[in-house]
């Protein structure tokens, strides 16, 4: 499979940039101090505030957070796809050293189409219902890579094979509604891979899918990423999915990164109270701490640990540490001083005044 794709790339895609080496660890995409604001009736609202992350070849970065935390907005900013009401007010997005945000918007978008691709949550909405899947796959190949009709079709079948759509040669002439949700998401991934991008941003790619199909799609993404040494940015709210595929995790809250850790560190000992609350509130399959015995005597099971309140909306971020109203560790300083994202251990950063305590308490 891989050999075929490589051959296809050499034969058909006159894209010198994509020929650049992707050795593990090369920094492909670097986002620094990104800030995005929305104009609303109530004034400007900062949806992303000083976000930085780095995507390296062959590694997967997970951006984790709940609704309104800015994880999706930040990736739209990277792609140059922000809606008209939003604009980037600060920061840089460097792709292999070139600042994408400094480019004119059309060049930014063209650059992204080729090197940084995106997969969205709702595959049905992202596919045009009146065109066949094949047409939509070949469209960009013809327009961007200047392929002929036959060439682009051959490549499209290859791409569908790559994402394991069965009977690709036949199904290429079908319409999106004839595909199931999982298959549509595969088509979206195929379409994103059409230009052999360096970086793939997947925004909640499996949220709309069944668990069984989710497992298939996540495995497919991981395989493709490992095979091509792409950089993968996985945007999700699901800590279970993250645990399976990510190398690094950035946890976002209220538009900011609150913790940045390698995946094993994060799950073993979260360095921010928000991360800890998130991990605690996920119901688990294996364990049940409820003292609920086999006799089914009607004893009530234990309550789920919950985080009080809810994530703040971008216009109403609390003062100081944005998490302090919901934090079980909050003290006076949290309400007034905003903690910076600082290194708390080797390779780990946390934006908490008491991160040391959190980690230290764990060791002791």
């Amino acid at each position, binding site marked *: 499979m891989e050999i075929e794709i490589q051959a296809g790339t050499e034969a058909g895609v006159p894209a010198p940039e994509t020929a650049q080496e992707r050795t593990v660890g090369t920094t492909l995409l670097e986002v620094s101090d990104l800030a995005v604001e929305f104009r609303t009736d109530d004034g400007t609202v900062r949806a992303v505030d000083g976000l930085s992350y780095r995507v390296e070849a062959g590694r997967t970065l997970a951006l984790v957070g709940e609704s309104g935390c800015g994880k999706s907005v930040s990736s739209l900013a990277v792609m140059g796809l922000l809606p008209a009401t939003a604009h980037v007010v600060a920061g840089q997005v460097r792709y292999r050293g070139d600042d994408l945000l400094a480019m004119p918007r059309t060049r930014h978008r063209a650059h992204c189409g080729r090197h940084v691709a995106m997969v969205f949550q709702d595959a049905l909405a992202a596919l045009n219902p009146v065109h066949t899947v094949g047409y939509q796959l070949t469209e960009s190949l013809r327009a961007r890579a200047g392929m002929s009709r036959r060439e682009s079709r051959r490549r499209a079948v290859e791409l569908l094979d790559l994402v394991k759509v069965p009977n690709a040669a036949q199904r290429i002439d079908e319409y999106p509604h004839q595909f199931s949700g999982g298959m549509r998401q595969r088509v979206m991934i195929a379409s994103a891979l059409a230009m052999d991008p360096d970086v793939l941003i997947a925004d909640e790619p499996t949220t709309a899918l069944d668990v069984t199909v989710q497992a298939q799609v996540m495995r497919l993404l991981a395989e493709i990423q490992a095979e091509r040494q792409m950089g993968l940015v996985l945007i999700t709210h699901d800590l279970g999915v993250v*645990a399976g595929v990510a190398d690094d995790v950035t946890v976002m809250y209220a538009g900011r990164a609150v913790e940045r850790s390698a995946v094993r560190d994060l799950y073993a000992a979260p360095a921010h109270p928000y991360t*800890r609350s998130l991990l605690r509130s996920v119901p688990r399959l294996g364990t049940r701490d409820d003292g609920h015995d086999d006799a089914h005597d009607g004893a009530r099971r234990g309550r789920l640990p919950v985080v009080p309140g809810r994530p703040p909306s971008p216009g109403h971020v609390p003062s100081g540490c944005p998490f302090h109203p919901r934090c079980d560790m909050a003290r006076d300083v949290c309400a007034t001083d905003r903690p910076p994202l600082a290194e708390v251990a080797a390779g780990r950063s946390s934006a908490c005044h008491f991160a040391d305590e959190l980690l230290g308490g764990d060791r002791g």
Partner: protein
Amino acid sequence: MAEEGPKDDVVLEVRDLAKSYPVRSGVVLKRTVGQVQAVDGVSLTLRRGRTLGLVGESGSGKSTLARVLVGIEKPTRGTVLVDGEDVSTMSRAARRELRRSVQMVFQDPYTSLNPRMSVGDIVAEPFRIHPDAVPAGGRRQAVAELLELVGLDPDHVNRYPHQFSGGQRQRIGIARALAVKPRVLVCDEPVSALDVSVQGQVINLLADLQDELGLSYLFIAHDLAVVRHIADEVAVMYLGRVVEQGVDRDVYDASGHPYTRALLSAVPVPDPAAQADDEVLLLDGDPPSPADPPSGCRFHTRCWLARQLASGTGPEAADAVETDGGPRVPRRCATDDPVLVPLGRHDAHAAACHFVGAATAVSAARRPDPATVPDPATVPDPRGS
């Protein structure tokens, strides 16, 4: 499980329920060209104060079943008994009364509330439809009490749904369902649209309401972890059939059906170490169309166990058959439709698989040892230490 308690303990019973939709074609003169068997012979029992979890992939018929139970759809076959009374043989008026005792909580808190009605009007609507359900204190007071019951500020009656967050909207939906004092709540994926940190709040609310009001829940979800947390019993559906049912511990830790095992193994565990060790029993492709279910065991086209057995050395391998474009599977799987057979320690535990024994053996070998699963909930609180 029938022997366990007195008969009147059962609030909702479903016997051999089926619901099919005709597939029509034609523009002016429509004719029926086929049937989609959304639900095909399902029997369930729900006891007072208990929670029955219903899991399965999309297209398994679990939402159709919910719609039949709350009376939005009429079953094509089978009976629904509420408090032992057959709903289909009742008069219209009696059915309307009975319908009150089974209410529903919806998945999407953004579409389940009419955006043009105030919260007060939404929660009061059940009283307008059933004027005799208004308690003595009057409608206004009842609405305030309901809002308070679900943890909302009663002063917010004049607000509109869009002024609330997802979790609060879900509370409004629960208050509306509780207005007519139902005995059963059918919860169709009630937390899957909510933020992780808010899910727990709603689940805990449902648990509290169950204790306080003695409600019974039919809890439909695709998230097996959530179901495990809240349910006393679990039924697993595949293509319109229940393929396994039993108390939660049996179903989760000693699954008798390869589909249940595969579902459980697909749940992403929030622990990188466990995920690295755990081999996922990937199911190929999507569930087949309910309009044209596979012959024999409906699961055989995707069954990992059938494939294992067919490629093994046992007698099943010798007798294996090629399926239509699919894998080799034991002959029985492709030809005979398995029925639910009781198994295990509790007779309530049953699975519909020809090779229950083999499936259970695999499950037992895979059962996670709770001691090895680190749980962040046990991370000590620095203030406490």
